[in-house]
């Protein structure tokens, strides 16, 4: 990121930094939309009409906006789940798996304690979801803390295993009488309450509260300070008496717990049941979002909103333009390419 700022300031234009930042992002987003427009054009679709569809369907109405928030809920949480460990230089590529296991444990809670009232059941499910995610993160964290195996590889390898465990549980034990690939609908008490009569659930509030909490924690708490010290130089901080191993395990598992909470939110709020292979890559998207904004909490908020606009708009594009839904992955990827490739934005460059 510092490179960009240098590159931009190298243009020697007297603009305030925040304006340059905004210009840079506008430029990059415009570039990715231009590229996707070309792809649409090649496949014989009208790009301008498609973009009008995307934006009017998402930002143009309160319903559209609410759907964007619905899409944003899981990736805001998984973005945080990657960001927290990244503060002590741990790379969590396993949010996808942690999300699945969180959803599985929360579902177990919903099916087992289905007679409890909502005020007891929802917190139990949240707790179970977080425990599930943390458990799934524990093995990579432990192996890392004893210096045996890199957490990047292990957390990545655990991803494909998690959906298979869900498949095993749902097919084998939990499926409803009608379907073999999903559970019966949860009882009403196991559903996260919706807000304002839309499909937005309180899950988004978990995300926002955790985000603010994360920022305050890193900035004002003793543990946040120690984490920043570990992120700066782990060996030096260890010699200064910071319990490095404990931090590695606790922080990585805390990241897993947040991803697990995202799984619980999706099972309880979005679907209201547990489905095999239900994630469309929310864990991976969280990873990308976190990297694109270098783990900055408010960057995560903005970037997950942007990604959600693309995801939601793509839904409509599929209906009105007759393109396969997954091509929205192209627009998503192009946006990511452009941000990753960091094109230098220069205006009026001399020489």
């Amino acid at each position, binding site marked *: 990121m510092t490179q960009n700022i240098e590159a931009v300031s190298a243009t020697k234009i007297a603009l305030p930094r925040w304006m340059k930042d905004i210009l840079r992002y506008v430029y990059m987003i415009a570039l990715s939309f231009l590229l996707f427009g070309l*792809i649409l054009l090649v*496949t014989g679709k009208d790009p301008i009409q498609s973009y009008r569809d995307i934006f009017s369907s998402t930002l143009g109405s309160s319903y559209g906006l609410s759907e964007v928030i619905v899409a944003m809920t899981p990736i805001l949480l998984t973005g945080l789940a990657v960001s927290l460990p990244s503060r002590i230089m741990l*790379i969590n*590529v396993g949010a996808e798996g942690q999300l699945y296991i969180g959803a599985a444990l929360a579902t177990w809670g919903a099916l087992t304690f289905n007679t409890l009232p909502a005020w007891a059941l929802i917190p139990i499910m949240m707790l179970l979801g977080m425990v599930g995610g943390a458990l799934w993160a524990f*093995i990579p964290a432990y*192996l890392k803390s004893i210096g*045996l*195996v890199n957490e*990047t*590889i*292990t957390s*990545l*390898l*655990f*991803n*494909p*295993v998690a959906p*298979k*465990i869900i*498949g*095993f549980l749902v*097919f*084998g034990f939990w499926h409803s009488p009608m379907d073999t690939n999903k559970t019966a609908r949860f009882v009403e008490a196991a559903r996260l309450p919706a807000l304002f009569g839309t499909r937005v659930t309180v899950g988004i509030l978990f995300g926002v509260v955790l985000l603010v909490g994360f920022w305050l924690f890193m900035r004002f708490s003793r543990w946040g300070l120690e984490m920043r010290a570990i992120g700066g130089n782990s060996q030096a901080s260890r010699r200064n008496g910071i319990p490095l191993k404990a931090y590695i395990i606790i922080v990585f598992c805390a990241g897993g717990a947040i991803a697990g909470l995202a799984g619980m939110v999706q099972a309880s709020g979005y679907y209201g049941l547990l489905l095999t292979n239900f994630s469309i*890559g929310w864990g*991976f998207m969280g*990873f*990308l979002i976190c*990297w*694109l904004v270098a783990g900055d909490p408010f960057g995560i908020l903005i970037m997950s909103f942007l990604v959600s606009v693309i995801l939601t708009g793509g839904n409509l594009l599929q209906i009105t333009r007759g*393109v*396969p*839904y*997954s*091509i*929205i*992955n*192209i*627009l*998503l*990827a*192009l946006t*990511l*390419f452009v941000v*990753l*490739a*960091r094109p230098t934005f220069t205006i009026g460059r001399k020489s």
Partner: protein
Amino acid sequence: MTGLSILGVLSSAIFSGTSLLYTALGETIDERAGIVNLGLEGVLLVSAASGFAVTVRTGNPYLGVLIAMLAGGLMNLLLGFLVITRKANQLASGLAVMFFGFGLSALIGNPYVGKSIHALPRFELPVLASLPQVYASLFKFDLLIYLVLPMAFFVWWLLFHTRWGLGVRAVGENTDTAFASGRNPRRIRYQALLAGGLLAGLGAAHIAIAYAMNWTEYMTGGRGFIAVALVIFSRWHPLRAIVGALLFSAAVALQLVLQNSGISISPFLLDSVPYILTILVLIAWGGNRRQAAPASLGRVYQGSE
């Protein structure tokens, strides 16, 4: 288990393991040059879709294989542009390539859903033709299967017995030293990615044109990730990858036999065997300081100038 059913498992392991081995050989070259390609799943999908589309259009499966290879090479070069030229983070770039592949393959493959093709022809090797018919039919393979073992040895020879391979490994171990000894790390990494992409394309071609013989979205079903696991499992060595590919595929093929013999192990749990095995291997070798992982794997080369 009878001898025939063991041979049946072996035969079906060879069928499904071929694509895995090609892909893993490609990824081995990438990673030996220090680049992790997490987007392999997307690369495979785009190659499979393009290869299948060309086969439908032209009716020539071999042309389809060629196009699949080219598509794989191009996708890997795209990753190369991000991680080599633009110095982006390798993991994030790989995931972006994966999402790109999801979308692009759906776009390419959409008109060809449900179309049928002339698959790669299968033939018996003359040696096997003398066997009883029931055995011979188990080992009637297509060209790509016959070529996969020679290819593994070729990649091994390329990496460990040529100047080019020495350069690739040097870059993967320490880019600065490689630069100091007169090599161009960027060019070598691009070459390695191209080679890896061509091989991944062969793997994808085998899935689409020889094995599944149709196109559906997400048809590679996680093979890209299994291949990444396989490379780690075989500790970045092309010949060990042969054993790994057979082992991983046999675990899946075994399901059918076990079901027939009345032993019920959930297929979901057998599907996770490759990942569990890889993690166990990592743990077993993790304590060993002389790990086989290329030292600069995943690091961005900032330039030595």
